């Protein structure tokens, strides 16, 4: 299938603590000369100050004081790299289980996951958890850096053992593109260029693999029907109104037959504007505003859609990543933000927690912190939703604590196929 190339790739690093995610990103940025001299000097100075050698590459992204003191990543660091063909937005995510919500933050907008693991220890439980979350979030491509090859004497046998584990899990989780690369982030082997220490591997380096992968997958994972969740109503000179929002799912064109939901009013797109200027079509990701042929009283939280239409429901079967400190229980009341709509919800049922090792569902009826489970939610208002697997924008939501306004869960409409 032909997918138009865009020159912006979003990637997230995932994997267990201490397997070398931040070091790999540091190496990638240093060896492609993305760092300015003063930034590199600051990393060298910080390394000396903390007695960790000449250059601790993890300090390139671990920028908080607490992170440098403890030698761990606490929250996502966003870094930017450019090559002649692409801009990369890199989310370097934390590995600790207690910071799983931060990892999910970084991975939720990723086109691709860069998985880092230690060749000596293979797939740890936390790596499996991250891969499972990435798969649930709809990431389809992974580049796996099997790290610390220098510590096992560049052993092909050790590499192959890990490859077998990854391939098995990747099949179960349904990743469609998997590159597995033996690397040493510390020494730079197979990160940007090739490696003389690993003559038995003739595949791409990490950078080569990232450059060859599909950009814009996040937006283009959605291919069924155009949707415009209304953010804001703009008053036009002369008394008309247009509806502003970001287009998702498919291109929206002037003349398209559309339905305004949940009111279920059929009409057509009379005009499309961007930044006050008329345009013919709004591609996916464009923050446009549209004029409808019919008179409506549409407002924020409503949705304009082309066929096949999303569902209009007040009860949702969902997959939930729970980040709250106290468990999520049946009957609990929360607020949901879905596209541009906020509504009260009640937990009707909890239908089990995912067992990360076995990838099946147990019979729990509550979710503890960092559990991923299945839940049925009742919503106070009618919600206009797609299954997450067909549209990552109209299929996703967050749950909000009513008292503190904290975001306590990431939710997806429907269930992943591997469950």
């Amino acid at each position: 299938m032909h997918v138009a190339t865009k020159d912006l790739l979003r990637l997230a690093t995932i994997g267990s603590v201490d397997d070398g995610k931040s070091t790999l990103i540091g190496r990638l940025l240093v060896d492609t000369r993305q760092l300015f001299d003063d930034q590199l000097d600051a990393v060298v100075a910080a390394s000396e100050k903390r007695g960790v050698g000449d250059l601790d590459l993890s300090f390139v992204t671990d920028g908080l004081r607490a992170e440098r003191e403890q030698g761990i990543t606490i929250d996502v660091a966003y870094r930017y790299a450019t090559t002649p063909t692409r801009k990369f937005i890199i989310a370097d995510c934390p590995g600790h289980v207690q910071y799983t919500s931060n990892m999910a933050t970084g991975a939720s907008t990723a086109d691709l996951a860069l998985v880092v693991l230690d060749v000596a220890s293979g797939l740890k439980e936390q790596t499996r958890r991250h891969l499972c979350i990435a798969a649930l979030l709809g990431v389809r491509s992974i580049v796996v850096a099997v790290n610390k090859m220098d510590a096992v004497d560049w052993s092909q046998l050790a590499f192959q053992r890990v490859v077998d584990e990854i391939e098995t899990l990747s099949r179960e989780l349904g990743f469609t593109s998997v590159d597995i690369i033996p690397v040493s982030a510390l020494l730079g082997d197979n990160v940007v260029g090739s490696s003389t220490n690993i003559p038995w591997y003739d595949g791409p380096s990490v950078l080569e693999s990232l450059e060859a992968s599909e950009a814009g997958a996040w937006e283009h994972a959605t291919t069924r029907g155009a949707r415009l969740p209304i953010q804001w109503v703009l008053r036009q000179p002369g008394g008309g109104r247009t509806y502003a929002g970001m287009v998702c799912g498919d291109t929206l064109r002037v003349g398209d037959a559309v339905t305004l939901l949940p009111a279920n009013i059929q009409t057509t797109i009379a005009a499309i504007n961007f930044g006050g200027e008329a345009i013919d079509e709004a591609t996916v990701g464009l923050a446009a505003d549209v004029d409808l042929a019919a008179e409506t009283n549409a407002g924020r939280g409503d949705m304009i859609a082309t066929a096949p239409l999303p569902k209009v429901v007040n009860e949702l079967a969902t997959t939930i990543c729970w980040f709250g400190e106290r468990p999520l229980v049946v009957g609990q009341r929360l607020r949901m933000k879905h596209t541009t709509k906020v509504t009260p919800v009640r937990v009707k049922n909890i239908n089990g927690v995912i067992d990360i090792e076995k990838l099946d569902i147990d019979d729990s009826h509550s979710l503890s912190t960092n559990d991923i489970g299945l839940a049925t939610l009742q919503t106070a208002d009618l919600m206009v939703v797609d299954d997450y697997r067909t549209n990552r924008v109209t299929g996703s939501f967050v749950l909000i604590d009513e008292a503190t306004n904290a975001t306590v869960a990431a939710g997806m409409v429907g269930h992943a196929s591997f469950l």
Partner: protein
Amino acid sequence: MRITIGSLEYTRTLQNMTTTPLRPPKFTDHLDLLESHAIFILREVAAECERPVLLFSGGKDSAVLLHLATKAFAPQQLPFPVMHIDTGQNFPEVLAFRDATVAATNARLVVAKVQDTIDQGKVVDPGLLGSRNRLQTVTLLDAINDNGFDAAFGGARRDEDKARAKERILSFRDTFGQWDPRQQRPELWQLYQGKVNPGEHVRAFPLSDWTELDIWQYIEREQMALPTIYFAHERDVVMRDGMWLGVGPFVEPRVDEQVEHRSVRFRTVGDANCTGAVLSSASTLRAIIDEVTLANVSERGATRADDKFSETAMEDRKREGYF
């Protein structure tokens, strides 16, 4: 709308790299994506928060932010005011630009003055030549409180500093205006939620994913106006702590300093007494983009004395409520 193929200009030359052939982008390039994302954030925060405000310094980033806000709500006026935290140590060219730009958008301008905070006795006057950089946090938090703002848009970018690289696009601040980097709200997908309780607020950073080069390319594409000090000009300067400072009311040459007349420009705009100039002959946007593409030193490293205090200078200031 115009589709610019920016990718071919968008290079920092790399070695040892294979490249995949680039098909002409059918959809949009990275600037289009960054632009729409920023517009989306501006609208979300304006819709969810009761009283937002847009922080405007007259620098290039806040100029881009204001330009994006104008686009987000066109043809209406901005649904929020614009606020300048005035340290009283501004470049006059920047103040002129501020007034002209805000007037052109018809927005309401709120000016909060550090001098007022000093006169109220809340902070100590560092004197004409001392830095008011850190004091403006107090002025900013007071202005947010006094006006009942529950959201403040800022032009900060994550590529500027390692602490900013860690911050969410919507960054929660408690009733003391503090940022707690260990307790940030998860920010999933593009579901930005800015609800706060009374006294709390959020900072919203629509330019989070833009780099310095993105900003310049966008300014060129949109043919935006900027304060003249961003372009190369002749100026009396002194070398102090490794930076060229422009001689003027807030920078007096010290006895051991030699005044030189050089062609310079400013890469960032902060207070006149702690913002360094770079030697440059770049007098057009195109020349600036070429210069930025080849730069070896980061913009804050080259030009901001306020970031050189310690390893975590920005984190420390942000925790207190700085921009």
